[in-house]
């Protein structure tokens, strides 16, 4: 795609998403609104490259999408012209203030991430409806077939319609919990991209795109700034995470000069704002982002401020008291106070026996303590947990290195 046509596609996609959100509110139907906007987008991609992009792309798309919606209602034998009129679709498109358009988009975000939908459904729907990805692209990213994806999307949208999943911004009382669901969905999308065998870059890109949209929509929410920062700082290391043969490169061994400086700078700025804004009530995203920032701002692994990182993990444990967080804290402790302290902290955890990284972290600390036989046993236990292929190759190399 040339730069000009890719910029055009970007405009169509961004504006299409806003037009869609408003049309869902007007028609009360996700499916009808999507079909109408889809047709308007197709028309835009045909006309604009020839006739030039209109002065007001959103107004153009809105007018065409509303006309398409009316056509669809007329074609549907069960509906009448009166319905189209009742939906206020037949007059000229109203010139909506930016705040209304923004709220419509927010409503759509909360509908897509409604807690009555499974995480997989939330991600799928967000990719399709919020990111505007075609069914075929959603299928590729969610590792399924196009037919299966079409069925899955159909089921989700059917549930939204018949179960009465609301299209509204939650009340202040509900907001923290619902915002958490929104953040989790976006972050799951991002980690699904990172954890893929070959990094599914597009999934990461879409998650970051949504993260930006959320920060834009709710600029006062420090958790969303934290989320975006966490994704940017992680993404900045994307190319250094694996070597040319696709093998894992640990954080300590990554070539920091290859980290994306612009993403790091943007992430660090966001972390600072998020921490200032959340003050002493920083949530998991702000704190995880702060930990990523501590790594990102160290010139080398040896220069890392481990005391600061241990402190951040202590704070994170207060809001997310899980064994995985305790494991990460143990590793940081091993850097701050030496391997014996780290090992003692990690050995205290007894619920992670089936998690390969628990065994692998123990093994690394045992190596540093010169207890090679125990380290080998721990590496073997890690392999017995059937880790992902890249981790498995890494573990095998580590065992070979201590032979």
């Amino acid at each position, binding site marked *: 795609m040339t730069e000009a046509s890719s910029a055009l596609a970007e405009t169509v996609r961004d504006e299409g998403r806003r037009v869609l959100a408003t049309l869902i509110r007007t028609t009360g139907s996700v499916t009808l609104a999507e079909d109408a906007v889809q047709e308007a987008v197709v028309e835009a991609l045909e006309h604009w490259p020839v006739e030039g992009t209109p002065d007001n792309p959103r107004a153009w798309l809105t007018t065409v999408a509303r006309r398409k919606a009316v056509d669809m209602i007329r074609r549907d034998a069960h509906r009448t012209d009166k319905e189209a009129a009742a939906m206020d679709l037949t007059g000229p498109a109203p010139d909506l203030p930016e705040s209304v358009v923004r709220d419509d988009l927010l409503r759509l975000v909360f509908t897509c991430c*409604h807690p*009555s939908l499974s995480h997989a459904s939330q991600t799928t729907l967000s990719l399709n409806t919020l990111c505007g990805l075609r069914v075929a692209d959603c299928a590729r990213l969610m590792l399924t077939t196009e037919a299966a994806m079409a069925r899955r999307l159909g089921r989700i949208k059917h549930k939204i319609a*018949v*179960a*009465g*999943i*609301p299209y509204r911004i*939650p009340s202040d009382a509900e907001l923290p919990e619902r915002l958490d669901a929104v953040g989790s969905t976006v972050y799951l999308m991002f980690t699904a991209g990172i954890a893929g065998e070959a990094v599914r870059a597009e999934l990461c890109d879409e998650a970051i795109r949504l993260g930006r949209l959320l920060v834009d929509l709710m600029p006062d929410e420090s958790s969303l700034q934290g989320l975006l920062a966490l994704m940017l700082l992680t993404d900045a290391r994307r190319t250094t995470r694996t070597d040319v043969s696709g093998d894992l490169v640990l954080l300590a061994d990554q070539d920091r000069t290859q980290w994306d400086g612009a993403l790091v700078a943007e992430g660090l700025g966001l972390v600072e704002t998020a921490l200032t804004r959340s003050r002493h009530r920083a949530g998991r995203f702000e704190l995880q982002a702060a930990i990523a920032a501590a790594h990102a701002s160290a010139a080398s692994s040896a220069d890392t401020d481990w005391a600061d990182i241990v402190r951040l993990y202590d704070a994170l444990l207060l809001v997310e008291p899980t064994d995985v967080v305790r494991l990460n804290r143990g590793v940081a402790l091993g850097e701050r106070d030496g391997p014996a302290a780290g090992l003692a902290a990690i050995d205290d955890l007894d619920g992670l026996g089936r998690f390969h990284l628990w065994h692998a972290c123990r093994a690394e600390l045992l190596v540093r303590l010169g207890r090679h036989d125990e380290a080998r046993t721990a590496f073997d236990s890690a392999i017995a947990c059937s880790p992902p292929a890249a981790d498995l190759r890494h573990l095998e190399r580590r065992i070979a290195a201590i032979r």
Partner: protein
Amino acid sequence: MTQYAALIYTADTSPTAETGTLYEEFGTNNAASIRGGAGLHPTSTATTVRVEGGRGGDVVTTDGPFAEAREVLAGFYLLEAADLDEAVTIAAQIPGAWGGSVELRPTLDM
């Protein structure tokens, strides 16, 4: 407005006087949303009916519920709510949801 069946799944026991009071309280507090419903006797009183071979076939009855389970259908309400969020708020007040669970299903127009 959407109508929902709120299907209450709990342990397979007869209700006590205490649960009776709690349900009465729920009914009073949510009278505006409740369109119908009933509590059910334990599954030891159930008879399952099946017509084998389809319509007009042999009527086969078996003693007991359709399927044995730890939590069983113990009662239901027909609720009317503006949307799923409102229905969830009401369902969370059903005493059966506190120890068991309540399944919300939108009803078909018939």
